[in-house]
């Protein structure tokens, strides 16, 4: 998550949501996100809410972190119940960061156990953790699988040393195949995260990374264009001219290469930046974000969404621990979406998915824009005739422009 939080309305200390949030909740999927705000090293491109120190003051430390999150999950169960939101077993759980595997596996297992105690897991639920190839071992992965994890997502980023160096990634490329092998042996599904468009990365470098990733036959692959965020070390290095700025055309070339290679390898896109081997391999937790499902986000700076109310926790782990220590909600602010904002988000998020957005759900202005989008080659004509706005290859690269044209001015 980004380093700055949005501006919103105040959130009550008891975490109780507005009545609107509860409406229809029995029919919606429910997920859990757990943020682990620790990393061994801060990467130069990263503006996520993460810390490298073991002690953060105010009673917050890596050692006590799992305990604090467990308290939030218990608090969450109470707040949702008081809000009249239906009690539902979890459909997906996702541990992200930071580097979740920097915590001992037992800590992650304890947190997952608390989630099970509070809500329970649906049969076949998807339980993922992100992992750094450096911070896993055959034992730790086995332990996670035993605790109920079903999936691991490795931050591979690149297979090319000079690219990893610009990203400040500490793992060596040879470490990735090992980690994948151990995960497989433990019975976990494997996803790989790649980053393209790093300053200095050649098209051939990117091709090498894709080849390396595909040689490991991952079940799932995410490929994100590197965004140079303000305030990061990388942004400063670019400003000082130490590394070159990357342009959008380079991103476009690399995206197209990824799509070609991944498709040839039998993977298909289901979201602009995500590909899966089969329908079952799609990341259901990721899809929940785009489809507007309910989820509780635990941990400092984590974002949540339940029935049109979005909220976000205080950012610093110490402030977060203090709130929960006092038995109050860790939320920093929230917003309740009105009908027009919900419509905007619905179009904005679902248009990015391969399943597309139904034309019948568009407002009249949006429906009128469809023909122009076909004419400009931005959406799939055959799908449009069937009543679905589905991005073409070119349209995926221009998804934000497509969304702007579908939405009212």
């Amino acid at each position, binding site marked *: 998550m*980004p380093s700055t939080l949005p501006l919103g309305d105040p959130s009550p200390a008891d975490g109780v949501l507005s009545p609107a949030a509860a409406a229809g909740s029995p029919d919606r999927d429910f997920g859990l996100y757990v943020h682990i705000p620790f990393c061994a090293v801060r990467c130069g491109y990263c503006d996520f809410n993460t810390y490298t120190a073991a002690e953060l003051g105010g009673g917050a430390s890596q050692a006590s972190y799992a305990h604090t999150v467990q308290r939030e999950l218990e608090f969450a169960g109470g707040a949702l119940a008081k809000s009249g939101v239906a009690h539902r077993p979890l459909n997906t759980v996702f541990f992200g960061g930071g580097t979740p595997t920097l915590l001992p596996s037992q800590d992650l297992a304890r947190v997952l156990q608390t989630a099970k105690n509070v809500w329970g897991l649906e049969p076949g639920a998807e339980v993922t953790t992100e992992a750094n190839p450096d911070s896993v071992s055959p034992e730790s992965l086995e332990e996670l699988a035993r605790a109920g994890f079903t999936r691991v997502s490795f931050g591979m980023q690149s297979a090319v040393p000079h690219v990893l160096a610009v990203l400040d990634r500490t793992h060596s490329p040879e470490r990735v195949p090992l980690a994948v092998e151990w995960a497989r042996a433990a019975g976990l599904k494997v996803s790989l995260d790649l980053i393209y468009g790093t300053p200095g990365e050649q098209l051939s470098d990117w091709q090498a990374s894709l080849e390396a990733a595909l040689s490991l036959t991952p079940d799932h692959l995410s490929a994100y264009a590197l965004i140079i965020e303000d305030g990061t070390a990388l942004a400063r290095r670019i400003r000082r001219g130490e590394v070159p700025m990357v342009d959008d055309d380079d991103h*476009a070339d690399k995206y197209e290469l990824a799509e070609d290679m991944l498709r040839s390898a039998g993977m298909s896109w289901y979201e602009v930046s995500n590909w899966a081997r089969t329908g079952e391999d799609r990341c259901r937790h990721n899809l929940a974000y785009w489809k507007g499902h309910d989820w509780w986000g635990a941990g400092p700076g984590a*974002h949540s969404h339940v029935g049109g109310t*979005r909220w976000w926790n205080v950012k610093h782990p110490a402030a977060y621990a203090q709130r929960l220590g006092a038995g109050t909600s860790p939320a920093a602010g929230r917003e309740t979406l009105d009908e027009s904002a919900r419509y905007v988000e619905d179009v904005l998020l679902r248009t990015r998915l391969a399943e597309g957005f139904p034309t019948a759900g568009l407002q009249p202005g949006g429906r009128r824009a469809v023909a122009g989008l076909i004419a400009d080659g931005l959406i799939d004509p055959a799908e449009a005739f069937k009543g679905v706005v589905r991005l073409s290859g070119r349209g995926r690269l221009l998804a934000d422009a497509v969304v702007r044209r579908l939405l009212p001015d």
Partner: protein
Amino acid sequence: MARTAPVPAATDPAIIRNFCIIAHIDHGKSTLADRMLQLTGVVEQRDMKAQYLDRMDIERERGITIKSQAVRLPWELDDVSYALNMIDTPGHVDFTYEVSRSLAACEGAILLVDAAQGIEAQTLANLYLAMENDLTIIPVLNKIDLPAAQPEKYAAELASLIGGNPEDVLLVSGKTGVGVEALLDKIVRDLPPPVGDANAPARAMIFDSVYDTYRGVVTYVRVVDGHLSPRERIQMMSTRASHELLEIGVSSPEPTPSKGLGVGEVGYLITGVKDVRQSKVGDTVTNLAKPASASLSGYADPKPMVFSGLYPLDGADYPVLRDALEKLMLNDAALVYEPETSAALGFGFRVGFLGLLHLEITRERLEREYNLSLISTAPNVEYEVTLEDKNVVHVTNPSEYPVGKIAAVREPMVSATILAPNEFVGAIMELCQSRRGVMGGMDYLSEDRVEIRYRLPLAEIVFDFFDILKSRTRGYGSLDWKADGDQVADLVKVDIMLQGEQVDAFSAITHRDKAYAYGVMMTGKLRELIPRQQFEVPIQAAIGSRIIARESIRAIRKDVLAKCYGGDITRKRKLLEKQKEGKKRMKMVGRVEVPQEAFIAALSSDSSKDKAKK
């Protein structure tokens, strides 16, 4: 300081001295005037606001005087109390006509020159006007307190220009006050008193006319013959319109009503009219009951030389702009405008100005005083186009340029005088030559300073000529120009097209030899300024149907944010809202979205931005 100041309306012309100060911008005229106000006691020390006479903020910021005023100063010499009328003149070349009227109200002029910089072309031009009006000149070097001052050198230069000895040049410092008393004494001693017929019908020349929100138009006059009295009816001789004199008086420096104004006196009139056009600079005021038979000579209607389209950035501001122009017009007899529509810019006005500075000041006042954001199109001159069917069209906007068969095009010309150190002669000649100038002559003002005269098309100097001159002469070059007829020229209209759609705002009328350069420059500029679209956008420059330059903006290939930031959908939605806001500030040219900033940047030269900062 005078013990008993002479009373207005009953002052013997023999003790009146009317003078103005001729000076270049920054040479310290306002500071010197301030010092005179203090020394003569008309402004108390504690009321002193630096540059008292320059009222408008813009004037004070730019250090220039746009509107002149007159102040009556008492001064005593050899036990006689005199009344000195200091008439403040505009210093800029755009306002030559106003200067000439101010000069006509005086018997003498202080030629004020910065002792560190020497005389500038505009000062020289105004000095020339003063000498033509037979004014007595008092040469003065100012800022002698500056370490860089070279009084001997510039005294010699002044002496050689106007005749006389370098020792006769007064040395003063407006800042410290040194030499200012001596200057006041010299004004009394050297300037002739005004002469007129006290018994003749009144003839008073209007040398300035200012609109005041509370009082209506305040008209500044110099009485030549006869007498004007409160409550009498007066007549404007050019229009024959008559008005009642509601108030008459002198500025000292606040308006002070008097029992009238007699021969040689300078003061103000208030008649209740609301528009400066009813009280025109240069016109003659007379008594309605006993009108003069002949008006004073020299009256001319102001003639706009430079035209530009002014458009509100936000189309909804059009009525605000219209009202603002109406109000500005009350105070600016030289401003003319008419509504105009541009396909690209929407509704606006084509406005005529005396020159580029007048344009800039007007635009700045509109933006500042009326809180408007404006686009001004590239300045244009007025062309006279004769068609083959002998019809004649006057074109002030490229979009009005006729499409039919053209027999001849005439363009306005100016004669320009440039002063600079002699080491820059080559650079100046090169510049003027490239602007289709024809050299008229060259003279040495002093050992190392030259005056170069050129006849140039006005169109070639309205845009960036002065800025380039300044940079090529390291700031030392100065320019003065005046209208000088017209000439037939081989001119063409260059159109700019985006994706085949002509964008009227970017069209230009240029000499055929320069059409290509303009086309390349403008298409190149637009390629940088217009963001990439979802399709390729060709940018073409054409004369008629012939394409002379072409650029293209490649289609954008990526416009998508890769990730969802750990579920921070709020951020993503806000980003989208921001993008949509940005889109609203775009003007659509066909299907091409052109940001307002692109219009502004394409239509302004970088140098004109620099000038605005001065």
